[in-house]
């Protein structure tokens, strides 16, 4: 079972048995400053491990439009 990551409506699959959060960011070419990862409601830090079968939510944290 791959590691499944969901960013809004976009799904990413990682085939590794396990991978650290910071490496996952690199593989997906996502900025760790601009995203947080959540597994079963738990916020993950950069050294936490993702394992096969995990379903991870990628939360984009940067927003911007007009500066009111």
């Amino acid at each position, binding site marked *: 079972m791959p590691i499944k990551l969901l960013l*809004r409506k976009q799904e990413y699959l990682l085939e590794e048995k396990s991978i650290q959060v910071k490496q996952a960011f690199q593989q997906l070419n996502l*900025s760790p400053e*601009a995203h*947080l990862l959540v597994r079963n409601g738990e916020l993950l830090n950069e050294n*936490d491990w993702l394992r096969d079968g995990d379903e991870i939510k990628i939360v984009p*944290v940067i927003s911007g*439009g*007009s*500066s*009111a």
Partner: protein
Amino acid sequence: MTSIKCRSCAERAAIRMRQHRLSLCKDHYIEWFIEQTERAVKKYRMFTRQERILVAVSGGKDSLALWDVLWKLEYQADGLYINLGIAGEDNYSDESERFAREFAEERGLTLKVVNVAEMYGETIPQISRRAHRGRFKPCSTCGMVKRHEMNRVARDLGYPVLATAHNLDDEAAILFGNVMMWQTDLLARQSPVLEESGGFVRKVKPFVRFYERETAAYTLLRGIPYIEEECPHAEGSKQLQNKALINKMEEEQPGLKLAFYVGFLNAKEQGAFSGLSEAEKEVVLTPCPNCGQPTTNSGLCAFCRMVKPA
């Protein structure tokens, strides 16, 4: 690689903040975040517990986090939601209003709602198209309408303070943009607090010392539901481009973003922009003959020239 532990209790850390060399678990992070907000409120003399505060809420993570923290700190904070009439694929404005309303109801807080289309007969995209303001996007119209309405509601309802949830990423992106264009007048005005003057209520930004990922982490860890969709008009905005550039540098040099913004505030405090601030004081503001809000124009203010009352 070893796991990251909370500095306070040695539990697994929920977040690591490299610029502070600080990692914290869920409970200690929430505690730290609330304390840091209180420190910023006091450091910049934003408001007191005796003052009524109007918090501008969009239904997004930052503004709901701000309202939540001020509520937990027992400030007199009411919310203001402005429905801009932005639809998009996910009915953006109505959905974000729902999040703001639910947040207020759950906590028994007061939320004032302004619906732009009901008040002025047109949504923000419609006003923008008719007025030909902004080349391809309604963002400048949106910013102007929000600024006008926030000040109007605060004044009409007797709130001396208007709080917005601008974070350090917002401020660094604005600063970067102003420096790139050498907009010295805007550099002189950029501040965590804009004092009340000439018909404008005091504007404060209690989250200016937090990175955007920190406000998001607070909202997630507190379990606050918020609108996750981005405004459909935000894609490709200059502010997002500036944030992406700054974050690229931050990844290589942790703390750069904080140093950039705090260095600016320190330089300002030491008088680096004092000549410019003095020049700004000489700008004459007069009440708009239609809405009564301050304007530098001799006739109608820019808002009244653009918006037709319903």
